[in-house]
């Protein structure tokens, strides 16, 4: 399953602009740094709630969002920090939300599993597995009815494919040719359960055919491959050709949630995937171009550390809600 021949890979990094590549790298590093810091804060006990993190999956969020227009929307899941940063939410509004502050992107009412910001094109994460799939189809239906040319990108995991909501939402998007990109981040596990246990044919992209639209399997740890696949998909959506299912093969470098030690993961599988880290791989390709210096990439990491440290300090001081806030925001 690690890198099947069928999956699409990207053009040579040389063919992309330096700034564009640096931007992708920067976002991926920012996400990784953010997640690592949040993990520490959580284990340390300073951060409340529970967390689902995306270390190792940075390329999927960044590659897809880089292919979207500002007016496009994404839906996400309980594992949405990376999607949020990739779609342009600020480190501060996210951290504030995770700390339950009123300055958070959801005023502290959503929390880690529901981060989002409509003004930046991200619906608060839907923590019901596959629950965001019909939503995204409905958003795309609105775009179609209003002929706005917008696209909805719907992030979900391999585990969501077994849910009825996937089946129903994807089928309606197909029969109505809705402009939605179904982005399946296939990290081989739904919680602790390996995909082989829940699907006879674990090639998620094949499912699209049953509904009569195009599916494609992509190396999800190659941000450029993800980007190019998403550009193609978005183009087809805007051209009215209907939805596309992108299966992005990737891997979770950390626990499913909280303090999960991942004992259910096979050691060799882990090592294989850890060797294919999306950030390291992009770094290698950048350096191979010749016009990036190691120091420059190190500086990127420095900037991320600094940005996040400052944000954490502010988040810890951010205003907490008062009892009065409990009753607000229920009805419009």
């Amino acid at each position, binding site marked *: 399953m690690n890198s099947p021949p069928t999956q699409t890979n990207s053009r040579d990094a040389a063919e992309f602009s330096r700034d564009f590549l640096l931007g992708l790298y920067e976002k991926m590093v920012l996400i990784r740094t953010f997640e690592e810091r949040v993990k520490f804060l959580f284990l340390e006990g300073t951060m409340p709630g529970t967390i689902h993190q995306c270390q190792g999956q940075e390329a999927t969020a960044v590659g897809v969002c880089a292919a979207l227009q500002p007016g496009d929307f994404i839906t996400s899941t309980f594992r949405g920090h990376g999607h949020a940063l990739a779609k342009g939410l600020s480190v501060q509004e996210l951290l504030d939300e995770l700390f339950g502050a009123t300055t958070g992107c959801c*005023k502290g009412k959503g929390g880690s599993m529901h981060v989002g910001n409509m003004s930046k094109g991200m619906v608060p994460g839907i923590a019901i597995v596959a629950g965001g*799939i019909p939503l995204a189809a409905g*958003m795309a239906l609105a775009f179609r*009815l209003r002929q706005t040319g917008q696209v909805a990108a719907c992030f979900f995991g391999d585990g969501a494919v077994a849910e009825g909501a996937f089946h129903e939402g994807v089928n309606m998007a197909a029969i109505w040719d809705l402009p939605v990109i179904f982005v399946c981040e296939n990290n081989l596990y739904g919680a602790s359960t390996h995909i082989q246990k829940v699907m006879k044919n674990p090639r998620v992209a094949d499912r699209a055919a049953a509904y009569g639209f195009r599916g494609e399997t992509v190396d999800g740890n190659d941000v450029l491959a993800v980007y190019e696949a998403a550009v193609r998909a978005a183009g087809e959506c805007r051209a009215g050709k209907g939805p596309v299912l992108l299966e992005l093969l990737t891997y979770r470098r950390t626990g499913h949630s909280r303090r999960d030690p991942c004992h259910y993961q096979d050691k060799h599988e882990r090592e294989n995937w850890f060797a294919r880290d999306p950030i390291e791989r992009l770094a290698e390709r950048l350096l191979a171009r010749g016009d990036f210096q190691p120091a420059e990439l190190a500086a990127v990491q420095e900037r991320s550390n600094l940005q996040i440290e400052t944000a954490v300090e502010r988040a810890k001081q951010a205003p907490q809600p008062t009892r009065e806030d409990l009753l607000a*925001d229920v009805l419009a």
Partner: protein
Amino acid sequence: MMKRQGIAEALREGIAEEMKRDDRVFCIGEDIGVPGGWGGAFTVTLGLSERFPGRIIDTPIAELGFTGIAVGAAMMGMRPIADVQYADFLFLASDQLINNAAKMRYMSGGTITVPMVMRAPVGATGRGSQHAQSMERYFVGVPGLKVVAPATAYDAKGMLKAAVRDDNPVMIFEHKLLYGSKGARAEPGAVDATSDIPDEDYTVPLNQALVRRPGRDVTILGWLLMLHYSLAAANTLAPEGIQAEVVDVRSLSPIDYETIGASVRKTGRVVIVEEGPKTGGVAAELAAGIMERFGDSLLAPVVRIASADVPVPFSPILENTYRPDEARIAAAVRQLMKP
């Protein structure tokens, strides 16, 4: 000018008017716009697909999916009117309605509105236990969701229009025996719920109960079919010297305790009539809420008249026993009035 219409007709006209007024409004559901079809299970959208091409969307049989699609479209500014053919199927859609539609605004910190309408026909009508439930109980009290249950054509149209214009998700429960379905679609045991419908545009608020019949001795609370039975019971009781005040609860979430309270303070006696199992019904909330707010005005414990705690039986004899009727209501009132 006025015209006499039944609930199905009035809803149809109300939907058409709202679609004309606001091009963000569209309908989505099963068999609602098929040429040569029925306009939904109860003809409410009959003919609308010709008048509003592309805006009456027939779906596959996938309640969870098309409900989620309505929620997503509403989040993007559309104003979907979704419907399930029978309210019993709402169990399949309740995740999208309760976990998503109703919570979206709150969990987004008040930044999202979900202006969608869901219509659902309830009531036991000779179809057996899976096409018969009174589903109100499962949605009353869901924070972020409004719930109404119109008993007349006038209210059905006015509340539908108000619901379409409301920025929150609104559930409208309709009763199969009140649609006024005719000919091939006529329902045995149907009750006349027609009204004189003004030609002018109007809405009916989603948060107000209505006194349908004034009386000083006892307050009878009902909605949908049970309202009509309650009115009939009140008429039977009048010649016996019992003046029952009949209140159409109409708005089930939120509940209009002001109107209800005024009646309770006056009569001091309350009978709540509900179709559906007694345990855990909407009448429980009404009884508890009335006791909390107006307990001191109560001259006797609030009485609940509801169905037995059983699934809906098919056999007409059993179904009629299951459904509270005029006689049971009248008997309960007489009992309550006993000195």
